[in-house]
């Protein structure tokens, strides 16, 4: 059903999930979401036409989520537990934060929450300090619609690096959703890296919502390298005084796919600092839209919101958009933005080729350089390399397609 059901019947949700939920609280949350689903507005992705996408997969009984490398070791107080098995009611931190950051106000989030069939709860305790990153590899098996929900709560004065990678098995089509809520406690410093690399059988709504408390720092890097149509909403609320977020996204779109991305930081607390950097590349007939949204709310005195959105188009049939959107409701602030949609710099190409490099190789190097500002910020070298290799592979493929059309 392309446009999704008109309504979600509460009774059907109750019948389907009530017996399986280990928490009456969770079932109640589903029913509340089902109730608003019919009337909730679409999420706002400016310049992306997604209303006819097959995003409304009926959830499989077994979501078909696999963790190919297993779940990370639970040491030093780190807690990782499946969302649906956990007795959420016994975990005050879970019921306090679930569905609070990713508020259930739009049609896609409501659909997701009503039908979550998989997920994780992750708690990083106060003062946690572990040099090794927490690495989560999540694979969606083909043809089994998943509505996967992850809550990560980091306590106070902790330091942690989290790598969160998603891939999908090639095979039957599905319309999935992944929603992550990330809470950064006061004084904590979190490096969060996510990579989304679904194959083109998956159409997805991906939403990640973080909140940062007083003097917390969130360094967020994201690689959006899916093959299918996806919506990616990456949002951060800087709630506490002095909170900081640095969000760097790299994206590559190829084939006929559409990737629509909202990357948003909202300055709520005083003296909060927001930085967005998005660099993307578009091949073939693909579409990539970067909406960079900087919002400074009234009362966020001394806030700073900066953003840069740049898109390179490698073919005449590529479509790209880089929209900086600044919403400023406070006077005593700093804000700035830069945006561009362009083609590969011919003087750089000429220089590289003048040393004998082929046009294709020169182009890949210029693009690697263009994406480098984001790639080098990725905390784990192995993930960095993996991303570079994936990009390289897509570029080589895109160049081959372009040559075939010449």
């Amino acid at each position, binding site marked *: 059903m392309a446009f999704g059901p008109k309504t979600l019947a509460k009774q059907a949700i109750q019948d389907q999930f009530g017996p399986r939920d280990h928490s009456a609280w969770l079932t109640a949350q589903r029913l509340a979401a089902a109730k608003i689903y019919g009337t909730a507005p679409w999420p706002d992705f400016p310049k992306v036409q997604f209303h006819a996408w097959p995003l409304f997969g009926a959830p499989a009984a077994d979501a078909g989520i696999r963790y190919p490398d297993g779940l990370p070791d639970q040491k030093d107080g780190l807690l990782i537990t499946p969302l649906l098995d956990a007795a959420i009611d016994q975990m005050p931190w879970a019921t306090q934060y679930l569905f609070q950051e990713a508020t259930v106000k739009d049609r896609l989030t409501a659909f997701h929450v009503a039908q979550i069939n998989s997920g994780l709860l992750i708690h990083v305790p106060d003062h946690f300090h572990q040099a090794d990153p927490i690495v989560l590899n999540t694979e969606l098996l083909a043809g089994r619609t998943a509505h996967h929900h992850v809550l990560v709560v980091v306590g106070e004065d902790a330091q942690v690096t989290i790598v969160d990678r998603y891939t999908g098995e090639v095979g039957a089509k599905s319309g999935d959703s992944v929603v992550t809520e990330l809470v950064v406690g006061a004084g904590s410093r979190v490096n969060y890296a996510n990579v989304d690399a679904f194959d083109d059988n998956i159409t997805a709504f991906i939403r990640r919502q973080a909140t940062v408390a007083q003097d917390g720092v969130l360094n967020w890097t994201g690689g959006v390298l899916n093959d299918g149509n996806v919506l990616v909403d990456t949002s951060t609320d800087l709630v506490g005084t002095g909170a900081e977020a640095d969000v760097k996204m790299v994206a590559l779109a190829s084939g006929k796919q559409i990737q629509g991305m909202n990357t948003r930081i909202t300055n709520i607390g005083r003296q909060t600092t927001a930085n967005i950097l998005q660099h993307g590349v578009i091949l073939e007939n693909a579409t990539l839209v970067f909406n960079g949204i900087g919002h400074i709310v009234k009362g966020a005195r001394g806030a700073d919101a900066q953003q840069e959105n740049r898109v390179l188009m490698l073919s005449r049939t590529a479509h790209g958009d880089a929209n900086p959107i600044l919403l400023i409701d406070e006077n005593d602030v700093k804000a700035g933005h830069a945006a561009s949609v362009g083609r590969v*710099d011919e003087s750089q190409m*000429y220089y590289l*080729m003048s*040393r004998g*490099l082929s046009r294709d190789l020169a182009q890949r*190097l210029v693009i690697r350089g263009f994406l480098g500002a984001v790639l080098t910020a990725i905390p784990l070298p192995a993930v960095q390399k993996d991303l570079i290799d994936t990009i390289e592979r897509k570029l080589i493929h895109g160049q081959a397609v372009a040559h075939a059309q010449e």
Partner: protein
Amino acid sequence: MDTLEVKDLHVAVDDEDGHQVILKGLNLTMHTGEIHAIMGPNGTGKSTLSETIMGNPKYHVTQGDILLNGESILDWPVDKRARHGLFLAMQYPAEIAGVTNAEFMRAAINARRDDDHQIGVREFIQKLDDKMAILDMSEEMAERYLNQGFSGGEKKRNEILQLLMIEPPFAILDEIDSGLDIDALKVVSKGVNAMRGDNFGALIITHYQRLLNYIVPDVVHVMMDGRIVKSGNADLAKTLEKEGYVGLRDDLGLDVPLTDEPAADKKEAH
């Protein structure tokens, strides 16, 4: 012995004001084993000549030919010309973030080799160390992004490092001495002299005779108004240094304005 010939070359460039003719019938023949120098007033077309030989798509050949070992290269794209032996040390090299200097030079060397004979890591590093030592460059420069944030002098040195690594049969060095302090000038000259030999030919574009004290040319050409107007031995450069271009221009009866004299209309008023 390799040969590079420029025959009756006419070149135009498209700018905002339309179509501008810059080279107007230029002839030049070079062989490996020879060092040629070109001098000439600003704006006379020296960089245009070097860029056109290299294959910069901004410059259009409207008449004449460029031949490498007897074969016309006008239809060759820049990368093919490079792989067949041409090298241009540019007046304004591009900066490329995210690609290290070392990685780039390795790619350039490998572009000239087939897949079965790519340069090994150890061999490459050894060569790089040797060449950087000749040029007094710190190791750290190899790991920096290509020309990114390099000073003017560092960029020039880096162009010569690429020359030494790639070892092309023909190099064109466009104002490799501009912006260099006296020590750097000696170092860069040492680098070029290290290339000298039967298998290497160079075309050195400069405004200053001083460079030619360090790299002594076999032939000196003077270029004015899009043509080579005089050729001679190394002494020609010394004469020019002393006398400027005015005398030569007037001897040859050329109608070109030069910067070291009053504007033409003023002259008429005298």
